[in-house]
């Protein structure tokens, strides 16, 4: 990529980045969105979304991601397949350094989202891609009529359990403390527990992934009684939270967990660099909120560019 000059570089093509791109491109700004993996971000890897307004019957993640992209591109936003590795101040704004060249921009939006956290227990790393996964929509098909375990107790874990039962023979759901999913998801989960398709292990901590060539069991421990139990499984899906994608970002201030600190205008500690969506400190990690951040950041960037 030759050193190109644009008004705004948006790093990350998830719902945050693509919404900001749509707003800014529609306002006539030259916008380039950098995406290192999948356009649509986490949305593209989610089977079905039921709580994004406007889709009363729910919508597939792939379809929603494709529509976000089409709408941003319709107004002239450009999407480039490249990963940002640094943002440096320059005379007329910023240089965004990528793994495929550099771009100069008057303002930058960091919308790099988050990636799955792993448990760190013995065996987990060894079996990633061989029985341990963080994407049920991608890898669930490998476990047709087999037994899997899901680790996690929030919305994503329950939602993915509901998706997995359509493919697999049985799901063991291991929840360390409390189930913190929305009522509608918990009601559906209850039905599956009643029917025996899901077994809930609440108050258990996973301690080891066991196997030879491939995964054969998950060892768990009761938090109170300290007793151990071995669950015979063919696959393990981990949904225990997210880590911010800020490992590459040195230019701005981050909170203790690595999320980007912003003010009410979604501006970071460096004027002209904005952040929104999952990657910002205090975000609620929902698509509607990410889209809201994208719109709010775009309006702040428009204001910023009109003043400088």
């Amino acid at each position, binding site marked *: 990529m030759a050193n190109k000059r644009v008004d705004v570089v948006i790093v990350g093509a998830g719902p945050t980045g693509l919404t900001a791109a749509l707003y800014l491109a529609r306002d006539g700004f030259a916008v380039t969105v950098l995406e*290192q*993996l*999948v*356009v*649509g971000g986490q949305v*593209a*890897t989610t*089977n079905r979304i039921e709580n994004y307004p406007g889709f009363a019957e729910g919508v597939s*993640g*792939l379809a929603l*991601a494709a529509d976000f992209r089409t709408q941003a591109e319709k107004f002239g936003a450009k999407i480039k*397949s490249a*990963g940002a590795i640094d943002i440096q101040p320059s005379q007329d704004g910023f240089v965004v350094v990528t*793994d495929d060249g550099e771009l100069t921009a008057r303002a930058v939006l960091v919308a790099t989202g988050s990636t799955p956290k792993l448990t760190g227990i013995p065996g987990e790393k060894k079996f*990633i*891609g*061989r*029985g341990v*996964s963080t*994407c049920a*929509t*991608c*890898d*669930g*098909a*490998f*476990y047709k009529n087999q037994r899997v375990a899901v680790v996690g107790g929030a919305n994503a874990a329950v939602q993915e359990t509901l998706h997995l039962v359509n493919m697999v023979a049985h799901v063991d759901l291991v929840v360390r403390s409390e189930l913190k999913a929305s009522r509608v998801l918990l009601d559906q989960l209850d039905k599956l527990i009643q029917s025996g398709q899901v077994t809930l292990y609440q108050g258990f901590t996973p301690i080891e992934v066991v196997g030879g*060539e*491939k995964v054969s069991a998950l060892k768990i421990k009761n938090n109170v009684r300290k007793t151990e139990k071995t669950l015979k499984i063919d*696959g393990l899906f981990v949904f225990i939270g997210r880590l911010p994608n800020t490992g590459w970002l040195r230019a701005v201030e981050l909170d203790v967990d690595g999320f980007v600190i912003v003010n009410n205008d979604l501006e970071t500690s460096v004027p002209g660099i904005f952040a929104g969506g999952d990657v910002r400190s205090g975000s609620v990690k929902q698509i509607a909120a990410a889209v809201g951040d994208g719109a709010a950041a775009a309006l702040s960037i428009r204001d910023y560019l009109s003043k400088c």
Partner: protein
Amino acid sequence: MKITVYGTMTCAYCFALKDWLSERGVKFEYHFIDVDYKKAKEMFEVSGGQTAVPFSTIEHDGELEKIVGFDRAKFNKILKEHGK
């Protein structure tokens, strides 16, 4: 050079890799292993039991390179070596 990509109908990373290769004018075979059982078996054998997609093989200069995931850096390196 022969590139084979194994993916599923619901895997966004697989579609991203497919688009990325196509944008670069790279020829490749693509197999949906969730509907093509023969190819699923083939992937299992070639990969040594891999249960994640996309999984790709690149046959070049008498070697068989295996790539797990949409690993742009690895693909870029091999494609560059072949002037793509």
